[in-house]
């Protein structure tokens, strides 16, 4: 039992490490298409992390929406603007050094905060299973207003995106 437990635990840490590695690649590789693929790997890794948190449905949504829809959009955009995506031109700007320093500083700062704060951890932490039905109930009762607002937002986005991206008759 303990053995299996350790294997699973190790697997999760491996997944996290893999995600972080993929994320680093996603923001550093020169070829944008490769970056997008690395990003997809990160998303799948995060879906795995959600699974380890017993958020099964969220993991599925993550795969469906991010890997399925958002990634497709990104890859489309990359292909439509192809000549900027390859590695002929530098992909990073002059801020690299400053940004790197800032990243390291903030990483240390945030991690310190995370470790030092005493979080009010529940007794049954880590063992809460939530069925899709309960989620749906919460979504359509307690959070029905934000839910409707989100739907309005999405339809607005749809129309807005079409209007922005369509061919302009004037110019």
């Amino acid at each position: 039992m303990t053995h299996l437990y350790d294997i699973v635990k190790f697997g999760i840490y491996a997944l996290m490490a893999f995600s972080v590695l993929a994320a680093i690649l996603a923001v550093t590789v020169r070829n944008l298409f490769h970056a997008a693929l690395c990003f997809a790997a990160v998303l799948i890794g995060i879906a795995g992390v959600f699974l380890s948190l017993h958020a099964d449905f969220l993991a599925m949504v993550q795969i469906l929406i991010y890997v399925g829809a958002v990634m497709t959009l990104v890859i489309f955009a990359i292909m439509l603007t192809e000549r900027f995506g390859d590695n002929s031109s530098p992909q990073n700007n002059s801020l690299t050094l400053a940004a790197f320093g800032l990243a390291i500083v903030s990483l240390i700062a945030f991690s310190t905060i995370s470790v030092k704060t005493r979080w009010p951890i529940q007794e049954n932490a880590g063992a809460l299973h939530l069925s899709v039905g309960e989620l749906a109930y919460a979504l359509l009762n307690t959070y029905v207003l934000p839910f409707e607002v989100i739907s309005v937002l999405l339809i607005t986005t749809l129309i807005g995106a079409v209007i922005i991206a369509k061919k302009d008759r004037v110019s």
Partner: protein
Amino acid sequence: MIPLTHYLIFANFLFVIGIFGALVRRNIIGILIALELILNAVNVNFVAFSQNTSPDPATGQIFAFFVIAIAAAEATVGLAIVLALFRVRKTILTDEIHLLKW
């Protein structure tokens, strides 16, 4: 079974990498990818907290849903802007777009 702090540090990594990417990428699509990374880091935090500290575990997950929906909306509009920009100015590199300059 994995302590909350480890999840938080993992999310910190993603967040910081996202910030780094958003700062250094020249290509707008690259920036968008980095922004999505940031949002994902936030999602990991939401779910981890809701699993460990909240009396109602649904809350965090539902916020994560909302974040995903908003991220999808953001990606859509962002990419539409990229296409419009590409059509009008023939470039999607940020350092060639500096109309906001003095």
